[in-house]
Each structure stands twice: as C-alpha cells, then as structure tokens.
C-alpha cells in the first residue's frame, strides 16, 4: 500500500516525524548551556517545524551598540533573519555577517531524514585580522573607536576548531535524538503490545462465552428430551402392566401355573421399568425446574415409620437390622410429603443395596439448625441467619465409598464402580434425584464414608413453623 502521508505509518516503520517528539527541550538546553560555558559560542537549535528547542546566547556589546544605530539595526535584523531561514541540506553553511563575524548552520538528520538544524554564532574567525569595511563604513554617525573596541571583544575561534566543535555538538545531539527515539518506541510498543494482547484475549473470551452458551442450550435440550421421552414411554407401559394384571386375574380365562409365573415376571420387570422411567421423568423435570413441590408440615415419625414398613420385607430377606429412631423434640418438616418419602426411601434403598448380610441400616431424625444465605466463614455474622431444621441421617455398615469418589456420587448416571450396576441394579439416578429434590426444598445433603466401614448420609431440611400445622 502506498501512503502519501508520511505520518500514518511512522510508528509501524519506527520513524521520527518531528524533532520535538524525541528531543526533550530540557536536556538539549542543558547540553547547549555547557557547550556555551566551555567555548563561549552561542547556540540555537531549531526543528524543521520552526520550533526553537534551545537558545543559549549572551548579547554581544558590538551587537548592542549596532542596534542603537539606524543602519546597524537594519543590517543586523536582515542578517539574523537570513540565518534563521537557512535550511542546509547535507552540508554545513557558513554564513557571514556584515560585522565580520560568521554563523555556522549545521543540519540535523536522523535515519536519512532532515529533522532540523543548529546555529553556532556569531563568532569572529580567529584568522581575521581587523574589522571589515562593511562594519567601519556604516551610514550615519558613530564612534569608530567604540565600534573597534567592541569588535575586539567578540568571541574568536579558529575555523577548523569551530568545525570540530560543531561536529562534536552534532554527535551529541544525534545521540540525544537516538535515546529519545528509543524511549518513545519502547513506550509505544509497550502500549501497543498490551492493547494487542487485550484484543486477543477479548476475542478468545467471546469465543468461550459463545461455546458456553451453546453448551447450556444443549443441556436444556437434553433435559427436555429426557422429560418428553420418559413421558411417552410411560403411556404404553401402563397398558402393558394393566393387561398383564387382567390376564393374571383370569379376565381372559384361567391361567396355568406356568403362565401365571411368566405373567408375574412380566409384571415385575414392567414395574422396574416404570420406576426407572419415573426417575428419568423426575430428573428431567428437576433439571428443567418444572417439578412442582407442594410443601406442608410433615411429621418426621410418620415419615420414618412409613419408609421403614416399606423396606422391612427386603431387610428381612437380606438379614439386615433396621433401626429407626426419632429424637425427642424433633419438629415437623416443611416439605412435599411425597417427595420427602421419595428422598428417604431412595437413601434407605441405597444403603441396603450396599450393606451385606448381617449389617445394620439406621434411620434417625433429630432437631437441628440450618444456615441461610451469605457465605459462611468470613463476615458470616453479617450475612448468615440460622433457622430451625430437621436433620435426617441414614447410616449403613456397608462397603463404603472412597474419598476420591465422594464428590461424584450425586452425578446422574454415575456409579462408583461400573460393576455395581450389574451386582446391585439401578441406573445411577437415585442420588442425583435426591440431591435435586433436597435442593428444591432449600435443604442440604452431605455424604461421609469410610471404605469397608459404611456410609453416612445427612439431609438437613427446613423445619415447619409451629403454626404451620
């Protein structure tokens, strides 16, 4: 791409546009002052933009005197303006003054580009013997002795020395420009790099956000799918169970013993399938947040004994001792009775499933407290409020769960050991549903376990207010 404007790509090309951008007035003035102090030569530094970056000089008595004369003042002004307008390219210009003094105008270039110039003078070349006629033949009245006296007091330098001094000053100024340019580029690049890094990160964040939203969408779709499919599966299954029952009851004629046995198997398996589908449906609804809870005050004793009587036959078959205890002063639970039963039944079933012959499963209800809102720990006094709760615990003396697995037991379809699916049945949905139901009741659930010693599940649910019934 061709750019006619020189400024547009200057940063990309690492160019300096203006001398004043990289040369600090302070530092250049300091250098020039010390130059003046050492050699007595006045110096002015001017940028190509016309800015005077440094000006160190002392009015010479000769110049002061000439400015009091009409002709002198006019000629002086003309010379100064000529010198100011000189723009040397490549080489130094030595410009004479009518007084016999000279000015050296030295170009300042950087990386092949003109940047400005500096002017050294006026000084009288040491080679000159006497005041020139251009000075001594001024028009108007003046005192030749005073003029000559002032002329003799002008700074004097040999031309070859003056050239060396100018070379030296040029080198110093170029070095200042170089350092200034280096600092400018470093800071420009610093800012540009930060900006570029930020842009890159922002782009990546946006992409991550998009894929996160996509995943959320998919998750929602999964829950809807689960709910729909389970619902559709349940309808024909209900008919299968119904017709099997009718056959079993002899509605279509008497059944032989073998036929009845087969029908019972069909019924049993269909019931298992129905439970599984109901669980899937619950999970789908829970994840889609469409499951409605109808909370009321539920008596803990009734809840526990209800669950106990359901599981007693199975416990007897497995030779498991079932302990049920409701502590004195346990308040009523604020929850949906059907769902509370589901929670406790699920946990008890689970405990029995993993407890061997001769083991014990204990259900316990007691009064407790629940922390609400705010983070616990730091500043908890400001945020947390406590409310009465009921603590339900289900303890078993079963195989236990390894610590590394504890965090995942609530994941849907997760089973600690894939082998347990075959040995103990179940699809790994139970605990996931339990946790979601507990969450739905604003309760908490915790599992602690020791391998080969047993597992303790603690569910804390809000207590009903006294006047809730």
């Amino acid at each position, binding site marked *: 791409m061709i*750019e006619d404007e020189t400024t547009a790509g200057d940063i990309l090309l*690492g*160019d300096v546009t203006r001398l004043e951008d990289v040369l600090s007035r302070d530092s250049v003035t300091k250098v020039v002052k010390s130059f003046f102090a050492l050699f007595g030569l006045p110096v002015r530094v001017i940028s190509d933009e016309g800015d005077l970056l440094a000006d160190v000089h002392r009015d010479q008595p000769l110049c002061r005197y000439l400015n009091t004369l009409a002709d002198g003042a006019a000629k002086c002004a003309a010379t100064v303006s000529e010198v100011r307008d000189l723009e040397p390219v490549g080489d130094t210009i030595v410009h004479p003054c009518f007084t016999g003094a000279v000015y050296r105008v030295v170009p300042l270039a950087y*990386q092949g580009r003109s940047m400005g110039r500096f002017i050294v003078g006026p000084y009288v070349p040491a080679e000159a013997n006497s005041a020139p006629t251009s000075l001594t033949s001024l028009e108007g009245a003046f005192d030749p002795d005073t003029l000559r006296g002032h002329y003799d007091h002008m700074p004097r330098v040999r031309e070859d020395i003056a050239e060396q001094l100018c070379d030296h000053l040029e080198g110093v100024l170029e070095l200042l420009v170089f350092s200034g340019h280096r600092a400018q580029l*470093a800071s420009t690049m610093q800012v540009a*790099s930060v900006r570029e890094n930020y842009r890159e990160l922002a782009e990546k964040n946006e992409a991550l956000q998009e894929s996160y939203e996509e995943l959320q969408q998919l998750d929602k779709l999964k829950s809807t799918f689960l709910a729909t499919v389970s619902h559709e599966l349940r309808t024909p299954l209900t008919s299968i169970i119904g017709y099997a029952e009718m056959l079993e009851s002899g509605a279509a004629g008497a059944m032989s013993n073998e036929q009845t046995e087969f029908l019972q198997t069909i019924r049993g398996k269909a019931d298992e399938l129905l439970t599984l589908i109901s669980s899937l449906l619950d999970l789908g609804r829970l994840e889609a947040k469409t499951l409605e809870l109808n909370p009321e005050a539920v008596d803990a004793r009734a809840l526990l004994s209800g669950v106990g009587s359901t599981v007693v036959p199975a416990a007897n078959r497995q030779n498991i001792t079932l302990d049920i205890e409701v502590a004195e002063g346990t308040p009523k639970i604020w929850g949906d009775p059907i769902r509370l039963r589901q929670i406790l039944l699920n946990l008890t079933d689970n405990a029995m499933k993993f407890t061997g012959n001769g083991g014990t499963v204990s259900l316990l209800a007691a009064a407790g407290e629940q922390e609400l809102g705010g983070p616990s720990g730091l500043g908890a006094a400001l945020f947390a409020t406590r409310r009465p709760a009921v603590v339900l615990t289900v303890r078993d003396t079963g195989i236990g769960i390894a610590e590394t697995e504890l965090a995942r037991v609530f994941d849907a379809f997760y089973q600690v050991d894939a082998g347990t699916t075959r040995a103990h049945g179940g699809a790994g949905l139970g605990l996931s549903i339990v946790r979601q139901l507990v969450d739905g009741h604003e309760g908490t659930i915790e599992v602690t376990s020791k391998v080969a010693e047993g597992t303790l599940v603690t569910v804390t649910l809000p207590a009903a207010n006294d006047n809730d019934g």
Partner: protein
Amino acid sequence: MQVDFGAKELTVKLVYYGPALSGKTTNLRAIHWLGTSSACGELMTLETKNDRTLFFDMLPITMDASSGLKVRIKLFTVPGQVMHDATRRLVLQAADGVAFIADSQRSETSANRESFLNLKRNLEDNGMDPQRMPIIIQFNKRDLNDVRSDEELAAIASQSREPIFRAVATRGFGVMQTLVGLIRETWTKLEEEHQLEEKFGINAVRFMHEVESNLRHQTGSGTR
C-alpha cells in the same frame, strides 16, 4: 512501502523472523558491523537484561539511488520467544519482505517449523497474503555440530519456493548475501506491484548494483 513523493523518498520495511535464539539480532549486528557507515545508521535494540529481544531491533539503511530517489530500508527483528506473539504481529505489520532465520541444528527442526507456521498465521491475521509476501530463508549456525548437511540444504533449495541462504551470523558469513537476496526478492515484487521504474526511473538491475556497492566494503563467504 511508504512513498513521500515530495521528498522523493521511498521507505521499505524488511523483517527478520524466526524461532527464539536462531540469530536474528546477530544478523543485524553483523550487518551493522560489516556495512558501510554511510549507508547503515545506528542499530537500535530494545532488549531485556538477559540480551533477549523484548520488542524489536531496528537498523536503518539509507541510500541515494542514481535516479535521485532516496531509498530508506528499515530492518527489524521480531522477538522469537513464543510468549511475545502479539509483539511479533505488531512488528510484522506493513512489512514488505521477510527473512526467515532458521537454526540449522537438527534438534531445532520442529522449532523452525513452528515459527514458520506462526509467521504464516500472523501474516494472515494482519490481512497480508503469505503467498504474495517476498520471503527468503537463511539456515544459520552452519558452524555448529549436528546441523543439516549442505547436501540436504541443496536438495531443499532445489524444491523450495523461497531462496535459501547459508550463514554463520556470529562471524558475519552469509549475512550480507541474505540481506541483498531479501532486497532483491522484495524489489522484484514491489516493481511488479508499483512499477517503480516507470514512476521513479529506477531500474531494478541498476538498483541492485547500487545496493551492493553502497552496502558492502567487505564480503563474507557463504553462498546461495
């Protein structure tokens, strides 16, 4: 390329790219040391205290072509370390040609490949077409043990779309050939795109002669 018609001035940007520690800065140092002081300006380095390039190094070269045109060539290096990718992309902006400095050691083959892919990606990210970018490849560090052999490089060169150069930058061998080669590739492309001869009366062959005579008062060994 930047053109200032008023000042009859043309500025070309050339970038030395390559994996970390392949010798990009060493190439510029060698050019600064071997090149004539009339053409080569001061080498500016923006480096950390460990001598690793932080942002870039820059070496300005200025030449007055016989047609009256002033040609400024600015050589840049990028930081090779992987973490400085944003800086590499910034330095690469507005580049007219790229010298890819590869490390000849066999152990560095995959680093070379990664860096070249990174160059390609960064060119694309900057909206530049890698297919149309003048690129030359230098196999540096020819003096080390277990490097890819000359025969291998010759075989690579005969297959390669990019001109291949060999160098020992620490001793200055091959760096000027690489630079002249890069300027030639770049100039050919710029001539095609901008008809420099027509616009500025600057003939490519004559210009390359001028480049060589302006730049060099010494020659290293090392060949194409």
